[in-house]
């Protein structure tokens, strides 16, 4: 037998190739006991099932939601629910990741994502290193690769990366033999945000299948929407993108309905997901004036009145009160914005635990 196995690298992984999607793990089926006659068949199925479970644990990265099959997403959300219980304990800390080191590698400013990952890692007893580009050797011109190799030499177990360039986490995965978690890359993907949004919706609405979510606002520049589209579609939701044509990307995934008129969409939605209008976009000429955007797309009390009674209002933060969302709406009982923050910690604990807590994580 040759080592490494054909087609695998030294660590048993498939080589990186952006054109080849990662292998989808086979579905884990329920294997029940049987009579003596078909016991052999049952045993064979059990063995097969165990190998699949090992396959799940072997993937040590979370780069985007399409890395995850529906059932893995389900598993993360279920685990997150158990972790949200940990957060209600008097001692909010469990020893599962004792001795593991997690690095927050942040090349972009961020409060809630970085804090959320930090809290999540600390509640699992992992050690957290915070790296902020503005206070590090990056200022002196160190490249991403050299920074990554430095971290590898220090023996970290996981790198949580936020980078202004789309694809940076994929590069890191190629250079590092540790677990890489994407905390937002450029305008591309933000998988943990999508997962925490699913978690929040599921806790507040019950089921997700057949529900309708409208993403409203700057979809063009939003990695939250890009990952959110995929995650919501995978859970069987109907997805509507509502924005002026200048704030829509040239490609939206099949299955996403595109609309320009918010008032028409309102009565059909279970969830209104409001995206931030970034300050720098306001002067870019994407819309004639901020007042016009506000009058057409701001979610205010009047528009909330036209929506379904139990509609859920979500926002990934930070909010521009008075721009994309009116201040009263942000404080209304419909708003799940603080639940999203709480869900973020639980979901990130689940992701870190599932990637680092099992056998393959500590290599």
């Amino acid at each position: 037998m040759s080592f490494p196995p054909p087609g695998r690298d030294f660590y048993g992984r498939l080589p990186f190739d952006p054109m080849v999607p990662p292998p989808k793990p086979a579905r884990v089926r329920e294997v029940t006991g049987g009579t003596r006659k078909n016991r052999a068949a049952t045993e064979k199925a059990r063995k097969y099932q165990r190998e699949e479970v090992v396959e799940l644990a072997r993937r040590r990265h979370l780069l985007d939601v399409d890395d995850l099959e529906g059932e893995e997403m389900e598993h993360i959300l279920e685990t997150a629910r158990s972790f949200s219980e940990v957060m209600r304990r008097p001692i909010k800390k469990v020893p599962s990741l004792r001795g593991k080191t997690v690095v927050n590698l942040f090349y972009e400013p961020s409060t809630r994502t970085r804090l959320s990952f930090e809290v999540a890692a600390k509640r699992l007893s992992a050690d957290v290193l915070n790296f902020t580009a503005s206070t590090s050797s990056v200022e002196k011109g160190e490249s991403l690769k050299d920074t990554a190799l430095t971290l590898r030499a220090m023996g970290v177990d996981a790198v949580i990366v936020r980078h202004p360039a789309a694809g940076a986490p994929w590069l890191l995965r190629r250079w590092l033999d540790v677990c890489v978690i994407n905390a937002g890359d450029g305008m591309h993907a933000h998988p943990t945000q999508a997962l925490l949004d699913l978690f929040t919706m599921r806790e507040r609405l019950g089921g997700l299948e057949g529900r309708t979510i409208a993403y409203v606002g700057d979809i063009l520049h939003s990695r939250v929407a890009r990952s959110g589209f995929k995650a919501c579609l995978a859970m069987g939701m109907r997805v509507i993108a509502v924005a002026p044509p200048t704030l829509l990307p040239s490609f939206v995934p099949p299955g996403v309905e595109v609309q320009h008129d918010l008032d028409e969409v309102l009565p059909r939605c279970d969830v209104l997901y409001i995206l931030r209008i970034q300050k720098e976009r306001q002067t870019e000429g994407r819309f004639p004036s901020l007042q016009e955007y506000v009058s057409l797309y701001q979610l205010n009390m009047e528009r909330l009145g036209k929506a379904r009674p139990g509609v859920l209002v979500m926002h990934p933060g930070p909010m521009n009160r008075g721009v994309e969302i009116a201040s009263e709406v942000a404080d209304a009982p419909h708003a799940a914005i603080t639940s999203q923050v709480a869900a973020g910690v639980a979901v990130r604990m689940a992701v870190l635990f599932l990637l680092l807590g099992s056998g393959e994580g500590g290599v």
Partner: protein
Amino acid sequence: MGFVPKAKVMEEEDIRRVVRRIAHEIVERNKGAADLILLGIRTRGVPLSERIAKAIADIEGVEVPVGRLDITLYRDDLHTLGQPVVKETYLPPDMDGKNVVIVDDVLYTGRSVRAAMDAIIDFGRPATIQLAVLVDRGHRELPIRPDYVGKNLPTSREEKVKVLLKEVDGEDGVLIGYEE
């Protein structure tokens, strides 16, 4: 690998009697059921703890609070597991000063009980922590001793003990066998 049964060492009737005896012993040791809390370790400790609570209710007429404990997060062998599944833990509020009885199906190395004690101490400071098990099969690796034992079952390390409970497996019984 799969479980191949060799002999059935306890029947439904035996389990029923043992649960009743343990309930009596718990009440006797703690002089009543006033400050008791039962904590079942997932998976099979949970239905057992509920059965013991029911038996105590029959004996003393007191509803004993029952909690469920998932010890996955406290295990010392996490790195050997494939994909761990974390279930929800529910502990009754305010365990300070109470007598907590951990309930599990099989006592073997003692490592689950160590993990359970760590978890309990994260929730509060009980007056005492006691341990009730349906089967004690020996081979302890930690200095842990049960307070209430359903049946002492001398085994070899190669053997496996499997407890079946109606709530989980559809039938009651204790099997001894081996992994194939």
